[in-house]
């Protein structure tokens, strides 16, 4: 009898260490899997970075980066300018559109939203071929800066619109009504009350527009001319014509680094709440 009591007491104690070890092993495998994929995501960037600073005889050098501010400067400036202009135009058309869709009784809202989002679902090459034909023979603006901006705006303003709609839905009417009751004009209420409260949603739209437009090369490949070659397109054309050069790698590294720093800054300031359900996570 005494023996059986001992075994009953001992039995639950015996498998304990093994179960713990099994759990620990599982955790290592699970976290290892996550880190494995995170490493894969970063690997192409790290490889490009390494290639751009590598010297032929061994050792490291920054000499490839002289081209980034040298012969690639115009492309980078064009990329930066077109990104900023696209963001501004997007803001000007997306904020009113979001108000119209959320706050006013417009008929056929779902149809309107689907139509506005149409360009988001169009493959880039289809957008490129349709725009290059329309620009050349309908609007008569081939290979122009305006055409470039129009293509970027139509391709990215839905990405600006959706986070603002989400933010505006989360914003109770009470704030606007209180401002109105206290004697604020519509403009004052918008500028002092609503826009600051919509800030995170708007900034999410700005981030998405930035990430897409700054790195866009496919639509650009179709519609750009010699004077409208953005930095991302330059990476593509150089890769196709000159093969894999350290200077191209330096340009690609710079583009990715700038994009990543902006994303990092955004996540630090706003978190990823307003990016849910959009292009970025």
């Amino acid at each position, binding site marked *: 009898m005494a023996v059986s009591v001992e075994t009953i007491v001992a039995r639950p104690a015996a498998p304990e260490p093994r179960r713990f070890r099994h759990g620990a092993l599982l955790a290592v495998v699970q976290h290892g899997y996550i880190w494995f994929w995170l490493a894969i995501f*970063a690997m192409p960037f790290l490889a*490009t970075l390494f290639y751009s600073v590598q010297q032929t005889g061994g050792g490291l050098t920054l000499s490839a980066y002289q081209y980034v501010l040298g012969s690639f400067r115009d492309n980078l400036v064009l990329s930066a300018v077109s990104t900023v202009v696209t963001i501004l135009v997007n803001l000007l058309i997306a904020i009113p559109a979001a108000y119209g869709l959320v706050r006013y009784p417009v008929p056929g809202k779902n149809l309107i939203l689907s139509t506005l989002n*149409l360009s988001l679902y169009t*493959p880039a090459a*289809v957008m490129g071929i349709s725009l290059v034909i329309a620009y050349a023979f309908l609007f008569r603006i081939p290979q122009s800066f305006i055409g470039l901006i129009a293509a970027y705006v139509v391709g990215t303003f839905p990405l600006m619109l959706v986070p603002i709609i989400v933010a505006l839905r989360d914003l109770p009417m009470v704030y606007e009504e209180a401002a109105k009751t206290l004697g604020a004009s519509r403009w004052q209420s918008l500028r002092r009350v609503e826009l600051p409260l919509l800030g995170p949603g708007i900034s999410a739209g700005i981030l998405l527009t930035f990430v897409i437009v700054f790195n866009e090369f496919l639509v650009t490949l179709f519609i750009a001319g010699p004077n409208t070659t953005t930095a991302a397109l330059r990476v593509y054309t150089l890769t196709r014509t000159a093969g894999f050069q350290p200077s191209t790698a330096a340009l690609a590294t710079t583009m990715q680094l700038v994009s990543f720093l902006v994303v990092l800054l955004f996540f630090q300031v706003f*978190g990823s709440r307003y990016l849910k359900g959009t292009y970025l996570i």
Partner: protein
Amino acid sequence: MAQTTLPQSLPAEPAALPLTEARQTRRQTLIGVGLLTPAALVALCFSIVPLFYLVQVSLTRGSSFFFTPEYTFDNFQTVGTRYVSTVWQTLKLASLASLLDLVFGYPFAYILIRKVRYREFARTMMTFPLFGPLYLAFGMFYILLPNGPFGSILQAMGINVANYLFSLPATLFAMAVFTFPFMVMNMGAALSNVDPVLEEAAKTLGAKPWQIFTRVLFPLSRGGILAGFLMCFGWNLGVFAQPLLLGRLQEQNVLSVVMYDKGLIQFDYGLAAAMGVVLMALAFFVTWLSLRFSRGALGT
């Protein structure tokens, strides 16, 4: 007199009220339409009109549309006969890459949602592929270069990189990595709606891990899985940079690449437009399906 005028004026007010209300609503509607006009104009001019124009061009021979349009259905017939391999190759690459995403993305999304505390960090790292397939393919090319530093490491691990530099696996891998975040995003949203208590209950009742997956997790997250797969498929249909940089001629035979060659190099606008229409139809159909299975960003 006062007693007779008072009842007369009283019913007049409720009668007038619905009218002003209707007028008010109409005014509100007009303001709403006015606010939507700039966005609608942009979408009309640079998305809808060019797409209709594309359909029209696809029904004309060669580049005749711009001189004297010769209307014909030949372009679609050509796509359906001589370029049917291009359509199949596009569908094959897109479905295989999306399948890879599905197989590797599901455990990733599950672990990320249930076990990981450093989710913000993971999200930040996951933005790298979203900077574009071009940089991704460029970096992968360098990794697979046989005499490069990464190539020699992989070679030491027993992987002969020379076999993979221009190949189907390299192309598929680059495509899968590019769309991986979309898959994880959709699956993560679906999985975070599944209460962990259900899994614990199944475990308590003696279910094996695979039983928990097939009986509890999979049925409850099916919508998100399907939406994620279709979203990846839709993005991969328009693939361009990965086959060009990492594939053989066989892999480069996809709609976007051939369309670019036909339209902007050989100036056969009719055929390029027809390919564009086919690709557009495929993409819109996939998107429509995907939106049916997900609740969408607006929860409608």
